[in-house]
C-alpha cells in the first residue's frame, strides 16, 4: 500500500541537482532510515537527475519530474522522468564506464544507482524521454 507520496517538478538547471537530492532525502527522513540508507538514496537521486541535465536535455532546458512513493512505510520507490532526447541503447548506457559525456564524466551514474538501490529499471523512447525507476527497502528499526 502506498502510504505517502512526494511529487516534484524542476527545470533542468544544474543548480537544482543539490536541491533535488536534499528534497528527496528530507522526505524519506521521516521513515527514520540509517545514515547509510539516506546517503545511498541521495547519491542515486543525484545521478538520475544529473543524467537528465547532462544527457536528456543536453543543449536545451526541460522539466524533470520526480515522484517518490513510500510503500508500507518501509520501501521507497523513486521515479525520475524527463521529456528529453531518450537513450539510444540502454544496455550500452548502463555499462560501467561507458559515457557520452566527455572526459570529465566517469560513466558510473547507472552503476551507482544499481549498486546503491535494490532495484533499478530504465525505460526510454527516442525523442520522447526516459523514466528511471528505482526502489530501496529500508531496514526495519526496533523502536
Amino acid at each position, binding site marked *: 500500500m502506498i502510504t505517502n507520496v512526494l511529487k516534484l517538478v524542476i527545470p533542468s538547471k544544474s*543548480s537544482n541537482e*543539490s536541491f533535488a537530492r536534499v528534497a528527496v532525502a528530507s522526505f524519506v527522513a521521516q521513515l527514520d532510515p540509517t545514515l547509510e540508507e539516506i546517503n545511498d538514496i541521495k547519491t542515486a537521486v*543525484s*545521478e538520475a537527475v544529473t543524467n537528465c541535465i547532462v544527457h536528456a536535455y543536453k543543449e536545451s532546458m526541460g522539466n524533470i519530474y520526480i515522484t517518490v512513493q513510500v510503500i508500507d512505510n518501509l520501501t521507497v520507490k523513486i521515479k525520475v522522468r524527463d521529456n528529453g532526447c531518450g537513450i539510444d541503447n540502454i544496455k550500452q548506457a548502463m555499462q560501467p564506464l561507458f559515457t557520452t559525456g566527455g572526459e*570529465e564524466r*566517469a560513466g*558510473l551514474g547507472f*552503476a*551507482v544507482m544499481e549498486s546503491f538501490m535494490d532495484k533499478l529499471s530504465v525505460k526510454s523512447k527516442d525523442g520522447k524521454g526516459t523514466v528511471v525507476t528505482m526502489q530501496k527497502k529500508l531496514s526495519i528499526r526496533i523502536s
Partner: protein
Amino acid sequence: MPVKIDVNGELVTAYLEGEIDHHSARVMRNDIDSAIERNMPSMLILDFRDISFMDSSGIGLVMGRYKNLKKNNAELHITNTSPQIYKVMKLAGLERLAKIDKVGSK
C-alpha cells in the same frame, strides 16, 4: 572558494569544500588544475574532510586529475573520505589509482 591550495615544496594539498556534483565539480577542477600547472608537484593530496556529499561527478574529478598528474609522473593521494564518499570511490575502483585514507585514519 570551494578549493583551498596549500603548497609545500613538491607537495601540493587541495582542501575541497562543500558538495561535489556535476554542478560544482567544474570550478573545483579548474582550481586544482591551475595549482598543478603552477607548482608541478610530485605529489597531490586531495583532502575531502570538508566535503559533505559526493556523487560520481567526484569520480570524474579524481580520475581527470590523476591523468593530469600522470603526465609528469606525479602521485595522487586521497585523504579524509567520509563513509559516503569512500563507498562511491570504492565502487569506481579508485583505490587502484591512488591511496585512499578514510576520515580519522591519521
